[in-house]
């Protein structure tokens, strides 16, 4: 391993090293998706691109939001807004485990000193209509990543199969940097002219969003927004494939999927506000799943989803 084993000194250095590592391994380094999502998997670079036969290799940081996990920035490791690092490679290469272990090495986890284990973890996302098999990866008893071979997404069988890696960045970084509280972790280099901790950047926003998510978000408006997003998603997909203006075949899988993402996040907010009963909960999840399935159905009819006009003849 040519990577330096020197420990990273900050949260951002861990991210930068992951970016450099996966770039060197041939992944396209994408930017975060510009919408509120619950996890890196929601980025269309994962959900939609895992469908169809076109090869794909991408890595990116994704800010993620889980409104129910808000703790006003007080809990040492629970946040309503956090970062995931996501890698998706299709087809999954035979040496994916070794590639992954190499990435741990790159961020300062020396496999000669640590105990790294692959512990069974079947992944399922009821809202995405997706499932896969894999592991949670443990380092000295701590879960540092999820490792999944996608089998189905949006109700479609994945063929070829994508390999997905998800790193929970805060937890991983806290471990590597030896921080006991997420807010104490150095965000940039501690010797920088303006050293910033994670708390300097996010403590206030955690408070603001916790209050917003639990007590202030306008539930009437959110319920209305959910209905609107759902309606628009279906409406976009119901339009004919041929664009009357350009005469081209343009299926709006991504704009429709944006509405699916929106509905999913609104549902999470409503859940945090405690206005969704146990029975309603299932119904809402089912409605989001219906949207993601419809988007998946649409995506496989597009070029990126493996559609070719000749093959369809």
């Amino acid at each position, binding site marked *: 391993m040519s990577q330096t084993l020197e420990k990273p000194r900050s949260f951002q250095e861990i991210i930068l090293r992951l970016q450099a590592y996966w770039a060197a391994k041939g992944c396209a380094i994408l930017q975060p998706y510009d919408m509120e999502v619950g996890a890196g998997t929601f980025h269309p670079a994962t959900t939609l691109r895992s469908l169809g036969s076109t090869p794909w290799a991408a890595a990116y940081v994704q800010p993620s939001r889980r409104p129910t996990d808000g703790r006003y920035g007080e809990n040492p490791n629970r946040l309503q807004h956090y970062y995931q690092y996501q890698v998706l490679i299709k*087809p*999954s290469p*035979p040496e994916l485990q070794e590639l992954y272990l190499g990435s741990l090495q790159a961020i300062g986890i020396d496999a000669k000193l640590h105990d790294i284990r692959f*512990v*069974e973890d079947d992944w399922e996302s009821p809202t995405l209509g997706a499932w896969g098999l894999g592991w949670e990866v443990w380092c000295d*008893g701590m879960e540092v990543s999820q490792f999944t071979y996608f*089998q189905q997404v949006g109700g479609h069988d994945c063929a070829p199969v994508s390999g997905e890696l998800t790193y929970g960045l805060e937890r991983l970084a806290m471990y590597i940097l030896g921080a006991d509280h997420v807010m104490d972790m150095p965000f940039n280099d501690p010797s920088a002219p303006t050293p910033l901790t994670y708390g300097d950047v996010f403590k206030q926003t955690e408070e603001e969003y916790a209050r917003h998510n639990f007590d202030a978000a306008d539930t009437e408006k959110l319920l209305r927004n959910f209905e609107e997003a759902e309606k628009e998603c279906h409406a976009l997909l119901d339009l004919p494939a041929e664009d009357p203006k350009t005469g081209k075949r343009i299926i709006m899988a991504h704009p429709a999927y944006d509405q699916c993402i929106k509905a999913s996040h609104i549902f999470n907010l409503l859940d945090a506000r405690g206005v969704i009963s146990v029975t309603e909960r299932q119904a809402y999840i089912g409605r989001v799943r219906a949207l993601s399935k419809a988007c998946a159905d649409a995506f496989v009819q597009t070029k990126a989803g493996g559609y070719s006009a000749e093959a369809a003849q």
Partner: protein
Amino acid sequence: MPDLLIELFSEEIPARMQKRAAEDLKKMVTDGLVEAGLTYASAGAFATPRRLVLSIEDLLAQSPTTVEERKGPRVDAPEKALTGFLRGAGVAKEDLEIRDEKKGQVYFAKITKKGRPAAPIIAEVLENAIRNFPWPKSMRWGTGSLKWVRPLHSILCILSAEDGAEVVALEVDGIKVGKSTRGHRFMAPDAFDVNNFDDYSNKLKSAFVMLDANERADHIWHDATNQAFAQGLEVVEDKGLLAEVAGLVEWPVVLMGNIGADFLNLPPEVLQTSMKEHQKFFSVRNPKTGRIEKFVTVANRETADQGATILAGNEKVLSARLADAKFFWDNDIRTVEREGFEAMAAPLANVTFHNKLGSQADRIGRIAALAREIAPIVGADADEAELAAKVVKADLSSEMVYEFPELQGIMGRYYAKKAGLSDAVADACRDHYSPLGPSDDVPTDPVSVVVALADKLDTLTGFWAIDEKPTGSKDPFALRRAALGVIRLILTNDLRLSLSAVLSNGYEGADATDLLSFFHDRLKVFLKDEGIRHDVIDACLAMDGADDITLLVKRARALSETLATEDGQNLIQGFKRANNILTQAEEKDGVEYSFGPDIKFAEDDAEKALFTALDTAEAAIKPAMADEDFTSAMSAMAALRSSVDAFFEAVQVNADNDVVRRNRLNLLGRIRDVCLAVADLTKLDG
């Protein structure tokens, strides 16, 4: 004769699947080999997180040549039949033999199956096993279509004899069979060749892989207990955890670590659950205080720093976990101290139990009302039972149980004590879920018993009322388990109650008759394990008071014991004979022979003796039955055996003299009455 070694090398196999998978591999391969004529002396299967291994000793080097004779059509059968036969048998007409049979001349074919070398047979059998392996869940990877539990990387398959090893030629979905494998993922990752099983297991051990799961488990347990013992501590035994941990490592290294001082005062169940569920740690206990003071974790490698980094990491992760647990515990205790324990149940009004059966709070209200009704029967104080019913589920709203659902009830007990409630109420929090399985302990404290019964009866009557009964293998609400729980609660505590009456106090609208027969079915299954036959229970069910489970089971046990004696068994035969004769006569004569017989019409000594014996039996049975002393009643009944036998031996019931005949039939009627007073013996088989 050669030995066969197979290794299927993959990415990490879930721990819970390994043992079964090794057995399945052994069964599929050995069955296939034997079916093809390849017998062997012995076979052993092994599993590690990354490999399934099968070693077969002394396998036939080739399958024996077999000759099978097959009978064909008659010589004069249509040509079509003959061609079909020839095709099926794979022989030519000239090779057929003609034999004379009763029905005429018939063709016979001799089908010779030539023996084949072992290697191609093994290849076929192994490929079939790989392609049809019964994994609980399997997956595809990359661009392939093969399914395995996780990506399969290499297949080793060699036939080894003294003169060397032969690789069995096979390729499965691009994976070519070879003679090489790899050692420990981190400690010895390079590939190496092997020649036979001994070579393989030795080289694996040098490459930091313990092949045998039992050896790994023994090593872990031995090392863990030694390390604990050295510090005057003991490891809390957990066989399930041991097996699981042995399935997570190829090279187990046991490390004992400390629990932060802040957490040592958490309830031991909280420490144990948190460590086991999240970290797969063993708890290490101080035998003097019963407190959990340390933990044992099992790493998968040796390190230059003797595991110091690994242990420090594990301790840190545990601290974060326990900080969460302590946070929940402190919050819960604060809530209880501020508002009382009952108040903790308030949010359950918003938790749906079932959309047709209302909220958890509705359910608690019903259970409390039912508990009041049942309390006097069990001998519990009605107020205390009602209070218990109102708080036993309060911990479902606690932060701790939200995080660790498996601690439901256990936390309730702690919180009830903190709230100053009685021990009986606190214990009911923990014990009212019991018994869960057929071997789970049954509560005996009256308050726990009342709430346990009320809880289960509300569940059963509720789901009966909305017609969500178990069907076939589907029992999503575990209603069979609930019914068995009720039965065991009643029997263990010797409770006397009319189940129908109690059920009528349950959820409105349940068909109590149908539910009672569900109970009877569960009871049959339960008693079957005791060796009590279905028909014995049927014979008792036909009697009055069949909804009193304790009485019913007492009667069934007595009858079952009686049937096990020679007298009892013979008396039943005598009873059946009497009953058959009576039924026929009654049908023919159109009367019921139930007028008392008169001894003055008795002619034979055996007949007179039967009168006396019946008098004696009746005199003994009546008071015994009144006392519900079924054993005495039934042995009095069984004592009739010799008199009944002697009677049938000596006397012709259907005598020519009509008065004598009717008297004898009425005498049989007495036998019937005496026996049927004990149980409905007509329901017995045989």
